[in-house]
């Protein structure tokens, strides 16, 4: 399995493999059900959850509506605190900025705290191409990186791996990245964590450059906020001399006080914890940071657009930018539970991935055009989302974009998309069905025909119908439609 998502097959094909992998399905089922139940309990503890949810939604919506203003305010505050702000329009630009910044330090390696934004732009690959090694320090990220794998969950990137698999990865791979795993190594979680700790400690103490993301950025103070649970993030954020943070522009909130909401909703939604174990905040270089105090002597903030302002231009789709990446929607999604994260072909899997990727990347590829259909619209994701993103609504909206085309903004320019390729037959079917349904006379005749031929009904259908009859029986056609029964019983002449 390669580290990138290029050339991914459409969701149904990618999911097929996962559905057949019994070990993977058992791993996913166990993990998602455990966290789902715990989340429900910790959310139920708060009497004002609904109001926190509404408040989070309102703050995010307000910020998105005035995003330009808050980003400029943020830039000013970060600069005043001794940091440097860089603006990146897309992945290439962001990668170039970070690569140049690392090069300028003369270093050939960086430590990383888990960051979705840098995964989104493929920073590790870009750095590698420039001869710079990037080491992930989050335990699950480390497992994914050592295993030459891809993350399959926002919060628990190695959710698809079990303990025995992790032990094998540590044993065979750690040595080629740094300190090898101790021998003998069992698959007890404590032993595994200790092996990772020893391996990582070496990296933390040696590294002079760190790359991070941020969960929130506060416009009024220029403060970056990172939430994590292992302490690796704090090591990355405080030990190295240079800190480079790559953050999506939608992560800004107006005031420090706004954090009150999200520091309650995010941990409970994601790890079912009342409070986050490590919450690190820093403001530029701060009074105690820099050459004389603790912490890095240089701080760079790379503000990443990469499709976000285009998404913002879409009235229905923009609510996806409220997302605080808690992963609650993944954990309740019955489709994610069976298909696994890799099938979504993006660093953002699950329901949020299904609406975010086709907006950030467009619906041009097979995988992106199939993502809006990777849902039964059951609504479980909407119900748990701590910022009330109506994911089913956006899914249907994006299906329309794929099926019918329509106006979108790409690269800041308003364009009209044509329907995605290969939809001609489906479009014709939908139109024919509508024509029939819009003519009750014809519908009635069709029903009668069906009833008369019901004894001839095949057990397996050809073509698209095979997708149903491969695994399921067809409903038995009744001898008489309801319409005809009514007419016969009630003597209505229609």
């Amino acid at each position, binding site marked *: 399995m390669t580290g990138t998502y290029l050339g991914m097959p459409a*969701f*149904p094909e990618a*999911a*097929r493999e996962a*559905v*057949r992998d019994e070990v993977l399905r058992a791993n996913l089922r166990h993990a998602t059900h455990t966290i789902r139940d715990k989340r429900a309990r910790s959310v139920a503890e708060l009497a004002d959850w609904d109001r926190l949810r509404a408040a989070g939604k309102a703050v995010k919506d307000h910020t998105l509506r005035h995003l330009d203003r808050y980003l400029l305010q943020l830039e000013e505050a970060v600069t005043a605190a001794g940091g440097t702000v860089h603006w990146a329009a897309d992945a290439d630009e962001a990668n170039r900025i970070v690569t140049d910044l690392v090069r300028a330090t003369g270093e050939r390696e960086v430590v990383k705290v888990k960051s979705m934004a840098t995964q989104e732009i493929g920073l590790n690959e870009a750095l590698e191409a420039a001869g710079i090694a990037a080491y992930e320090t989050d335990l699950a990220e480390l497992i994914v990186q050592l295993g030459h794998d891809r993350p399959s969950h926002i919060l628990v990137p190695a959710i698809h791996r079990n303990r025995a698999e992790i032990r094998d990865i540590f044993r065979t791979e750690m040595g080629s990245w740094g300190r090898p795993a101790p021998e003998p190594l069992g698959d007890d979680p404590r032993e595994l964590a200790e092996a990772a700790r020893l391996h990582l400690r070496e990296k933390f103490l040696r590294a002079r450059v760190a790359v991070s993301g941020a969960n929130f950025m506060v416009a009024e103070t220029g403060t970056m906020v990172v939430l994590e649970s292992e302490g690796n993030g704090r090591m990355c954020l405080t030990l190295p001399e240079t800190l480079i943070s790559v953050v999506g522009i939608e992560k800004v909130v107006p005031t420090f006080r706004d954090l009150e909401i999200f520091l309650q909703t995010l941990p409970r939604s994601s790890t079912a914890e009342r409070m986050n174990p490590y919450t690190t905040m820093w403001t530029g270089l701060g009074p105690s940071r820099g050459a004389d105090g603790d912490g890095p002597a240089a701080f760079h903030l790379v503000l990443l657009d990469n499709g976000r302002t285009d998404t913002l231009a879409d009235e229905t789709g923009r609510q996806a930018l409220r997302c605080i990446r808690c992963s609650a929607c993944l954990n309740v999604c*019955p*489709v994610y539970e*069976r*298909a696994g994260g890799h099938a979504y072909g993006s660093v953002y899997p699950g329901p949020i991935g299904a609406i975010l990727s086709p907006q950030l990347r467009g619906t041009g590829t097979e995988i992106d055009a199939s993502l*809006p*259909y*990777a*849902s*039964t*619209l*059951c*609504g*479980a994701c*909407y*119900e748990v989302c701590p910022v009330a993103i109506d994911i089913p*609504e956006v899914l*249907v909206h*994006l*299906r*329309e974009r*794929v*099926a*019918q085309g329509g106006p979108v903004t790409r690269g800041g320019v308003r364009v009209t998309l044509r329907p995605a390729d290969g939809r001609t037959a*489906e*479009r014709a079917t*939908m*139109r024919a*069905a*509508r024509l029939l*349904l*819009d003519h*009750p006379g014809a*519908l009635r005749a069709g*029903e009668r025909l*069906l009833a008369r031929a019901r004894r001839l009904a095949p057990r397996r259908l050809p073509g*698209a*119908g095979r*997708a*149903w009859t*491969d*695994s*399921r*029986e067809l*409903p038995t*056609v*009744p001898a*008489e*439609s*309801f*319409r005809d*029964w*009514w007419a016969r019983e*009630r003597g*209505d002449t229609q």
Partner: protein
Amino acid sequence: MRAALFVTCVNDALYPRTGIAVVRLLERLGVDVDFPAAQSCCGQPQYNTGYRHETEPLMRRTARAFAGHEFVVTPSGSCAAMIREHYPRIGRKAAAEGRGGELAEAAASLAPRVYELTEFLVDVLGVTDVGAYFPHTVTYHPSCHGLRGLGLGDRPRRLLTAVKGLDLVELPGAEECCGFGGTFAVKNPDVSTAMGADKTAAAAGTGAQVLCGADNSCLAHLDGLLRRADSPMRTLHLAEILAATEEEPLP
């Protein structure tokens, strides 16, 4: 009291027994039932697959067919949700795209008059014991659109518990989607089947004879899986159970 039946296209063509059961049940409860023949499909398959424009004529037709009716009752949570939740949305979009305010008005007028069957029984008629008799062990699957879209809550279960002779057993993981999802069932057949198989396994594990639901689309998917597996469990729409009495048991 008078109520119009919106039978839905799936029930009309494939599950007429559900429609007949609703008629019997409502009439037994003293409701005069109309069946406006101009009705057709609510447009949900088109809308959910991304063909919003194809939905509009069907929406217009539905609104017109039920224009004069104070109460419109339908034995399908997902079709009720389509009209209540999505019609207003489609109407607003059509107006924004310059196709007049006519659709928006039609939606606004129809939406509040549409009731899913259990809502109509419990909220409008104020009954939970409908005088039914069904001496079997039953487990109930609450379909997603009824559960989360309409917020039916425990209405179906209250109705079932009041049925004489009926033994209602809890379905583990009841609130999880069955995997039907309209065109999802054919667009993502593997995931759909895996979800349905887990649902039918959970149902079989309860030892119930009947898997009951209030949406025949979901039941078609689950029934198809049960029959392919030669399972003795059968699926039934809630309306059929509520319509059954000692004098007139299920055919």
